[in-house]
């Protein structure tokens, strides 16, 4: 989730009210932000909602806090006027990055804090909401250097040259993708295309190369920049508009005046930003019912206004709830309901005994596993609990096939264990200097490939390592286990590559093989650097369970 750095002094200025640092933590929670660290004036917060880009800036956070503190309420007011400026969209961009929305914000007082917040917000919106710039990319440029109309079009990778932001020399679009840091990071978005998007002004000066980088001249702003041109491009029109709204409202909160730009497509023309109220109806009885607290209609209205909604009673118990369309997270009345809960205060909701009366029950499987573990402890085995993920190379040493991971993070854990006895062997290796005998067992998850399907099961594996150990010790344990489980079984001679030939067998229940046991082959012990004999047994518990119940 986005991590945002805010300046405490800046926040106080924006909410135009004095608050203490100790109050801030709770206030931030209303804006779904959790304080991670405070360092002098800098508060590092984690914004928890990945669908609320409007809360990823100090300006957006301040908007909510103002509502909570009663400094303002209802939908925040933003005024827009026409700039008369145009952005002309070339039809050839249609299949590459079809949408663009722009805005002009004049007379902003950015300063260091505002500049820092703007750049940060731009980045967070592109990363999370903009799906790493694929869905949405944002550019901010120096309006005073732009001669309108501006053109948004697709060009060949080597057709245009410009100096990229903070670069030193002119580069073609192709070179930018190959050589600059941003080009390498986001070049994947354009990989499949033979034409790239570009935004140029009337003098053919490059403003930006979306979604990669701005130009170093027009496309560069500083804390002193007063008049800003914002462009948002992307593949999803709604997301493009929402992102533009998030950007311009943040700028307007710093004194900026928003002006609309006419974006001229081949078949239509729209003036952006399109800041407007959307609405949803809210059944107050449903709110009361789901909240579980008897709350008056008036109280709900008051809480909603605090959370920056406008409300209008359209029926006795029905509200028309309006919100500004920088919010794209409202899919149903539930999203509004959450804001009612937040404003009410989660910690103000009184405790109540849970009335849903049901009978609690463990799965038979869980009980069965417990019984088996009890039996093993009675046999003086120590229970280990080891990872389900294993190393394929270790399993190969035992001639075992396994299900492999496509994206392992370590060779030690690149597969799923088909059996547990390899872990028991590893445990013996780990403890080889300990006092003997060592008797270890584990009951746990395993999975094997059966044709192309995974076959999961709970298995039991146990092993004995001692100065001398024979198969009989294992067989005595098997006898004890099955007697106590009340399951009839028999053993059959069977050879396995990891056991000494002639000293291993399989366990059969109801005609089905459900396990095996044997003395581990010295070639394996040698490979593991183990110089004590080891006998082991592995039983598929899930299969037995089917026979028992």
């Amino acid at each position, binding site marked *: 989730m986005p991590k945002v750095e805010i300046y405490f002094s800046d926040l106080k200025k924006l909410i135009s009210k004095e608050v203490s640092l100790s109050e801030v933590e709770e206030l931030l*929670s209303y804006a*779904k932000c959790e304080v991670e660290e405070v360092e002098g004036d800098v508060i590092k917060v984690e914004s*928890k*909602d990945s669908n609320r880009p409007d809360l990823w800036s100090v300006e957006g956070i301040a908007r909510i806090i103002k509502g909570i503190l009663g400094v303002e309420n209802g939908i925040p007011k933003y005024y827009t006027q026409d700039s008369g400026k145009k952005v002309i969209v070339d039809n050839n961009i249609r299949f590459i990055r079809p949408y663009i929305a722009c805005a002009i914000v004049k007379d902003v007082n950015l300063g260091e804090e505002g500049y820092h917040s703007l750049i940060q917000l731009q980045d967070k919106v592109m*990363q*999370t909401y903009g799906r*790493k710039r694929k*869905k949405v990319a944002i550019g901010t440029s120096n309006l005073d250097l732009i001669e309108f109309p501006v053109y948004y079009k697709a060009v060949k990778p080597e057709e245009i040259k410009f100096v990229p932001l903070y670069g030193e020399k002119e580069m073609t679009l192709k070179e930018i993708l190959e050589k600059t840091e941003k080009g390498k990071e986001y070049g994947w978005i354009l990989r499949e295309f033979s034409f790239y998007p570009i935004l140029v002004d009337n003098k053919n000066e490059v403003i930006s190369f979306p979604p990669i980088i701005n130009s170093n001249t027009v496309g560069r702003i500083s804390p002193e920049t007063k008049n800003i041109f914002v462009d948002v491009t992307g593949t*999803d029109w*709604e997301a493009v508009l929402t992102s533009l709204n998030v950007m311009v409202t943040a700028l307007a909160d710093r004194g900026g005046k928003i002006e609309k730009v006419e974006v001229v497509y081949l078949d239509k023309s729209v003036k952006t930003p399109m800041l407007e109220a959307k609405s949803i109806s809210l059944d107050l009885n449903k709110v009361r019912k*789901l*909240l*579980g607290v008897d709350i008056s209609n008036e109280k709900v209205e008051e809480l909603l206004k605090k959370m920056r909604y406008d409300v209008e009673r359209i029926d006795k118990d029905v509200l028309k709830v309006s919100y500004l369309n920088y919010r794209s997270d409202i*899919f*149903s009345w*539930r*999203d509004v*309901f*959450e804001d009612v809960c*937040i404003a009410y205060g989660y*910690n103000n*909701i*009184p*405790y*109540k005994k*849970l*009335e*849903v*009366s*049901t*009978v*609690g029950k463990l799965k038979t*499987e869980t009980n069965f596993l417990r019984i088996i*573990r009890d039996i093993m402890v009675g046999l*003086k*085995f*120590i*229970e*280990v*609990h*080891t*990872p*389900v*993920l294993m190393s394929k190379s270790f399993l190969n040493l035992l001639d075992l096939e396994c*299900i492999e*991971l*496509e*994206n*392992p*993070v370590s060779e030690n854990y690149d597969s*799923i264990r088909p059996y547990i006895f390899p872990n028991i062997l590893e445990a013996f290796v*780990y*403890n080889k200097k300990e006092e003997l*005998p*060592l008797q270890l067992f584990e009951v746990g998850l395993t999975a094997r*490939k059966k*044709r192309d*399907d*995974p076959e*999961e099961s709970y298995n039991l594996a146990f092993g004995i390592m001692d100065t001398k150990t024979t198969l009989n010790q294992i067989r005595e344990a098997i006898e004890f286990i099955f007697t106590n489980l009340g399951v009839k079984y028999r053993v059959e001679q069977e050879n396995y590559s990891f056991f000494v030939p002639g000293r291993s067998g399989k366990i059969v229940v109801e005609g089905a093989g459900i396990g095996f046991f044997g003395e581990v082959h010295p070639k394996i012990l040698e490979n593991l650097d183990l110089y004590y004999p080891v006998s082991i047994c592995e039983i598929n518990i899930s299969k037995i369970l089917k026979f028992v119940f």
Partner: protein
Amino acid sequence: MISLHPLEKKVLKVLSENFQTLKEISKKAGLSEIETLRALGWLKNKGLVELLEKEEKTIKLTFLGKKYLEKGLPERRLLDLLKEKKEIFLADLVKYDFDPNEVSASIGVLKKRESIEVKEGKIILKKEDVDLLEEKVLQKLNKEKPLSEFSEDELKILEDFQKRRGLVEIKSKKEYAAKLTEKGKETAEKVEYKEEIGILTKDLLVKGEWKSKEFRAFDLTLPVYSKSFGKKNVYLLFLDYIRDKLVGLGFKEMKGNFILNNFWNMDCLFMPQDHPAREIHDTFYVKNLKPFEIPKNLLEKVKEEHLRCWKYWNDEFSKKVVLRSQVTALSALTMAREDLEIPGKYFAIEKVFRPDEIDAKHFLEFYQLEGIVLDEKITFRDLISLLKLLAKEIIGTEDVKLYPAYFPFTEPSVEMFAKHPNLGWIEVGGAGIFREEVTKPFGINVPVIAWGLGIDRLAMIALEIEDVRDLHTYDVNKLKSVPYSKILCQK
């Protein structure tokens, strides 16, 4: 009267006011030296004897040393050869059966005595008569001797023999001598050497011999060590303990596959397919497995919700086989079951898998505790109350703070922090009411509250484990030493 072991009595009987060696004492007492020494140790601890311990070092020849004793030292052989040849090329020495490893040591010895010089790869004789102390030392070692029999100069040579040339080895041997203390004398006089029963045997019982004998008291001050006994894994026992708590609160356990497809793991939980948190880094994908059948009706409905809200859906992606990365997948599977009960309460403590850097705080697999409650009348207040109840039952605290949170599948969402008596405020879990976009495709029309607790974190606190990897430890010593009672430390 001090209680004495029969061994102690036997030893005490033969001791006197004068020092005797261990050998003498054990011979008189008719015991082995080890038994005698053990008894002397105990008696010393009781202040009855004075025990002297003397360590003596002896030196003897190694195999190579013995060879030189027979054949002569290589420096002597080199000197003899030079007497004959006057000068010789270094490279030619091999021909005369010199071990290359010994050549430099021999040249060193002779050079030090100015008997030879080495020039342009040749050894040239300068002085024939040399006194080789090395030879005398070697001959003196025809049998093992105490180190004390050697002079200062000889010791230097021995050091060279031992460390650089491997001709001798030094062994140390401990000598013991003991005598009675004043208290020991008094005790020895009073000791009754009557026959006592050490171990009660069947014979003694059958023949009734115990009636005429006395039982020897056991010395309980002696330490004992617990040997290899069976033991359950304390971490799993902790999880069992929590399971039992939840059953006590009326929850039914859920179980299900840990290998499943994206659809069950995330799609049906309204998590957008193109969401950054779903990228390859956050889920383990599995090679070459066939996707599972997804009920067609459910698939269509879930897809519809995704397209309506997220405007993105990819059938192939939905089918990809993954390892369960959140237990909520199990809640989803449960909601799809025909025998789902409404009203109903379900829970699971199961393993989930996530790619991560492995360190003290992160491992690739861990347990999650999750529960759901389905009921027509369930409310957000019930959820908040349930969280408080869980904090009380599982963590043992009534001091909790709740914060707004975000989970893709719940709205509203909440996070809970609890005040732990030792650790202060800790994050313990998250919860919420499942979105209608989640429940509707399952045909569920009542509210469903869902909650999850970080059970591994709680286990680590209870078991006082600092490194998360220790939850999967192979170390038998650690497993043996964690007390079971730790799991109960949370009231």
